[in-house]
């Protein structure tokens, strides 16, 4: 086959942003007293757009690259060139397969062509008749890194970041040879780390130096003259002066390789199970191929890789991930729906935090670190204030110890955070947020007091998770300046911020809130003032159903593990313990008050709280979990236990019902915002698409509401 045989596929994408393959002949440098080894053809992958438009590998791009490489193979055969190099435009080797193209391949056969096209092109690169070199100058993801892996040799820049094989995260496999070459190059253990552990750990990537250390690249050069040094190095390799050492390389036919291979695959499977409960098929497929390809030829593995890719491209999990990753996290998160014109935003040069408890301390630290403006905490007595400030200072010291902050930055951050027992210190603040006890009358009292102190332009914000922002604003002189600013725990880590617009919140205040969210490196999502907003409402609906099933007599083990097929980050009872039983109960009561029996208040839970039980499960020293007999004695159960399957279906239906209500109530601008909230605020997996694509996929939407939330094709295969 030649790349041109795939023209029929490329023709399906007339609007592809093509990454071109430009070729330049370069006379390789010699050494003192000796001429260079000959002419080297350097291919630059370049879309001629600026750095905000990454280079990607779509069908047209691959056909062009393949055709160019076939030409170079001919030149190599004629003795015109002694080597071929591939590099990229600044900041990118190439970012990876064009996902928007891949997700629009509606037929399995087209997906198979795409997989085969990549292999065809990369096989040419790997068999040019002269050595090939990848000069990894910048980001190389997925198919981008596989171009490098398919080359005979690789150099990498210390300035390069984002080197990864993220396919397992996306719902695919590194199926353009990565899964075959990487274990041979760096060992099966490192290959599992790169192909499984990193993608499933918040899609972690490697730096150039890390890739070099693993053995992915043969040489490491600084960015200032990366290409010049890479070419000099290539000249050395071609002339035989430089022989790269590959300390981590493994001969798969060696006796110990079989053992290492099996152990690495087994470790990978345990990791996948722990992280995802195997709720998405892709990670296991990566390991399946890795397991069998030890004894395969590259061509045999390639055939398996292509079949697997074609299959996975048509899965809901892959489509939902692309929806969640591209459409939501990369696009929608950057342009929040309903946010007013950012030009209306007012500057925030000083922040006040009412309260000096744990949440207040977390907020103060975040504001001081990210905004770098003075932050002042207040509380009712000096001891509490001192404790709050001391907490922030101690956190700064921890960051300093971890080298996340320099000494100067630590000094600056500490100096920014002060405390007072008098709210007069808020007089010149632009933004004051309360983090006091979740009681409406207390919060109203705080805001009333603040209005007597702060300037007319000062924005007042509440971090309430369940109270009505509208009621909080009701008696204010300037209700237009109150906004809900709901963070998630832990504040430093969770990227979501629910920005709550009360009926009278004005546009300038809202615009400031969104700009503030961006400065805090959070994603703001606009939500209406409805009980518990988005994330907590959905989480509590879910926990309420599972708790109800438990109360009805479902064994704890069955109830708590019923949702494993969803691959959520933790089980409901674990989440309940983490949130804290009293907090969860408090929010549940608010929801019960607002929405009635959809949010039942569990009497069992109340008993646990009354008896100061922190968690249902207790882990014994040998690692097994059980509910202590003393806890069980407090509880009473019904006599209608459910199976795990019944609990799962009950939760699916409940979530579909609740989300249906939320959309009817216009809590958010659309289903996409619900998914975005669940991904960023609860860490729900992208292979669920957040939650809505999953509910459509399992039929809950149709069962409960009579229709899907999202049309087929939005976050699922169009035919599905």
């Amino acid at each position, binding site marked *: 086959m030649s790349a041109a045989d795939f023209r029929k596929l490329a023709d399906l994408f007339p609007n592809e942003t093509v990454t071109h393959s430009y070729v*330049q002949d*370069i006379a390789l440098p010699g050494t003192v007293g000796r001429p260079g080894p000959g002419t080297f053809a350097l291919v*630059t992958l370049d879309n001629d757009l600026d750095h905000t438009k990454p280079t990607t590998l779509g069908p047209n791009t691959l056909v062009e690259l393949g055709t160019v490489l076939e030409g170079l193979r001919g030149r190599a055969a004629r003795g015109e060139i002694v080597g071929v190099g591939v590099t990229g435009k*600044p900041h990118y080797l190439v970012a990876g397969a064009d996902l928007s193209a891949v997700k629009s391949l509606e037929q399995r056969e087209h997906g198979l062509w795409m997989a085969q096209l990549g292999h065809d092109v990369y096989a040419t690169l790997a068999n040019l008749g002269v050595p090939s070199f990848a000069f990894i100058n910048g980001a190389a993801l997925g198919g981008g890194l596989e171009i490098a892996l398919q080359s005979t040799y690789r150099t990498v820049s210390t300035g390069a970041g984002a080197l990864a094989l993220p396919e397992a995260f996306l719902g695919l496999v590194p199926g353009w040879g990565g899964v075959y070459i990487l274990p041979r190059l760096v060992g099966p253990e490192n290959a599992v780390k790169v192909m499984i552990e990193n993608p499933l750990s918040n899609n972690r990537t490697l730096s150039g130096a890390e890739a070099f250390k693993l053995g992915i690249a043969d040489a490491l050069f*600084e960015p*200032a003259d990366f*290409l*010049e040094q890479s070419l000099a190095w290539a000249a050395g390799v071609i002339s035989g002066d430089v022989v790269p050492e590959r300390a981590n390389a493994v001969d798969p036919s060696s006796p110990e390789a079989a053992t290492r291979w099996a152990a690495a695959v087994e470790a990978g499977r345990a990791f996948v199970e722990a992280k995802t409960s195997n709720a998405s098929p892709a990670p296991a497929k990566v390991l399946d191929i890795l397991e069998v390809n030890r004894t395969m030829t590259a061509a045999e593995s390639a055939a398996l890789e292509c079949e697997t890719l074609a299959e996975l491209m048509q899965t809901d999990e892959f489509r939902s991930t692309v929806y969640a990753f591209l459409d939501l996290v990369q696009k929608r998160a950057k342009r929040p729906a309903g946010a007013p014109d950012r030009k209306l935003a007012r500057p925030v040069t000083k922040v006040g935090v009412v309260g000096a408890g744990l949440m207040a301390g977390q907020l103060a630290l975040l504001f001081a670190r990210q905004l770098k403006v003075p932050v002042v905490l207040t509380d009712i007595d000096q001891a509490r204030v001192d404790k709050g400030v001391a907490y922030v200072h101690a956190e700064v010291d921890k960051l300093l110890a971890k080298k996340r902050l320099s000494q100067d930055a630590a000094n600056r951050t500490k100096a920014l955070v002060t405390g007072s027992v008098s709210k007069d210190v808020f007089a010149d603040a632009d933004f004051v947020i309360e983090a006091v006890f979740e009681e409406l009358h207390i919060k109203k009292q705080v805001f009333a007091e603040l209005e007597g102190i702060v300037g007319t332009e000062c924005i007042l914000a509440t971090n309430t998770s369940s109270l009505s922002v509208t009621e909080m604003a009701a008696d204010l002189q300037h209700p237009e300046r109150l906004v809900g600013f709901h963070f998630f725990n832990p504040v430093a880590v969770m990227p979501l911020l629910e920005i709550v617009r009360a009926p009278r919140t004005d546009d300038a205040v809202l615009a400031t809130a969104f700009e503030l969210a961006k400065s805090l490196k959070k994603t703001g999502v606009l939500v209406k003032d409805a009980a518990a907003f988005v994330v907590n409402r959905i989480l509590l609906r879910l926990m309420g159903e599972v708790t109800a099933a438990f109360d009805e007599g479902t064994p704890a083990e069955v109830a708590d593990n019923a949702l494993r097929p969803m691959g959520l980050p933790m089980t409901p009872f674990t989440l309940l313990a983490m949130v804290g039983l009293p907090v969860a109960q408090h929010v549940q009561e608010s929801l019960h008050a607002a929405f009635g029996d959809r949010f039942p208040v569990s009497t069992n839970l109340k008993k646990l709280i009354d008896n100061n039980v922190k968690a249902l499960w207790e882990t014994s020293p040998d690692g097994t979990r059980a509910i202590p007999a003393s806890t069980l004695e407090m509880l009473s159960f019904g006599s209608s236990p459910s199976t795990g399957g019944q609990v799962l279906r009950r939760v699916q239906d409940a979530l579909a019902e609740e989300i249906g209500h939320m959309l009817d109530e216009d809590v958010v601008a659309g289903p996409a915002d619900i998914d975005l909230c669940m991904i960023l605020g609860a860490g729900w997996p992208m292979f669920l698409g957040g939650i809505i694509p999953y509910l459509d996929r399992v039929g809950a939407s149709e069962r409960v509401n009579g229709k899907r939330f999202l049309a087929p094709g939005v976050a699922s295969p169009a035919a599905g």
Partner: protein
Amino acid sequence: MSQHGSGASPRTVRDVVFVDGIRTPFGRAGEKGIYAGTRADDLIVKCIRGLLRRNPSLPSERIDEVAIAATTQTGDQGLTLGRTAALLAGLPRTVPGFAIDRMCAGAMTAVTTTAGGIGFGAYDVVVAGGVEHMGHHPMGSGADPNPRFMSERLVDPAALNMGNTAENLHDRFPAITKERTDAYAVASQDKLAAAYRDGKIQPDMVPVAARKPGEGWTVHSKDEPPRPGTSMADLAGLRTPFRAHGRVTAGNAAGLNDGATAAVLASSDAAAELGLPVKMRLVSYAYAGVEPEVMGIGPVPATEKALKNAGLTIDDIGLFEINEAFAVQVLSFLDHYGIADDDPRVNRYGGAIAVGHPLASSGVRLMIQLARQFEEDPSVRYGITTMCVGLGMGGTVIWENPHHPDYSGTPSGESAATVSEGAMA
């Protein structure tokens, strides 16, 4: 160490040596030039890194100063170029730097100024060089000449255009005809082509990767401006852009170019201590002013002054590296000293007419070429690098060849430390 416990060290003047020099290939300025998409500061960074790579015994933290010249110090040549280049080149943050300007003699002035600092004892090792990206910074761009120049007739406005001053020089020296300047230019092209053929130019160039839209990356390792094989007939028909029926053409003048150069200088003690090569020893230098309208004659008084400072005469000079801004200006110098147009001591490897003249970078190119000629010709003891400078100046540096049997400095590789330790006892 002092027994008295107070008072500064006694002042001693130290020998300054040229350790090594390197340059980028020169390009033609403009959209089609090889560096159209390359930043000026990146060009100088390649030179600094090339120097360090070639001199591994020089610890980068031992560099005491980075002086980089550019005529137009804005944009990619702005922001205190010596310091930014040092940071971009990856030198330790403890290494300071500054920017310097004497138009065409920028790099030469970077060398002589820091050499003065070495001689005085302020520095042990320095990097000095220059860059001009004339594609990004046409000569005089952004300048705002004081109107007094015109109103008080301080300088003929025409003197701000270098081509006009070259025509003026023809007026002053009628013996220098267009035929002579063209013949000189043809010879410059021929000499450079021969030097390339003999591998005299390539070793002192650092390759530069450059990317252009629609073409991708390539690496440049030879000069773009040369036009080997240029004949008298080729030059005869060229336009005379500065004066109708004039004499100065694009063929007998240096072009508009992009490029960078840099050199390492050291005290002879530091060179010995660090095991650095000594390619030349600085004997003396001088700058002199002339009428801006005939700036091309500047090398004559500058050379007079430098020779006087050194106690030498023109007859002691065995090699001349003179910048060829214009052929007429070189010939006016040669005529002054009674040197033949084709004297083999002059610009053996050709000059700026062939290789190009990225203004502030050229001074170090002259030094690089003289150093290589010293190495291949130990019979020569002294050589000069000299150039004319816009607004009516000349600059000359006299160098001694360490390969000459009568070399007066510390021979390369021998430590001077033993002598000073003896003196302390």
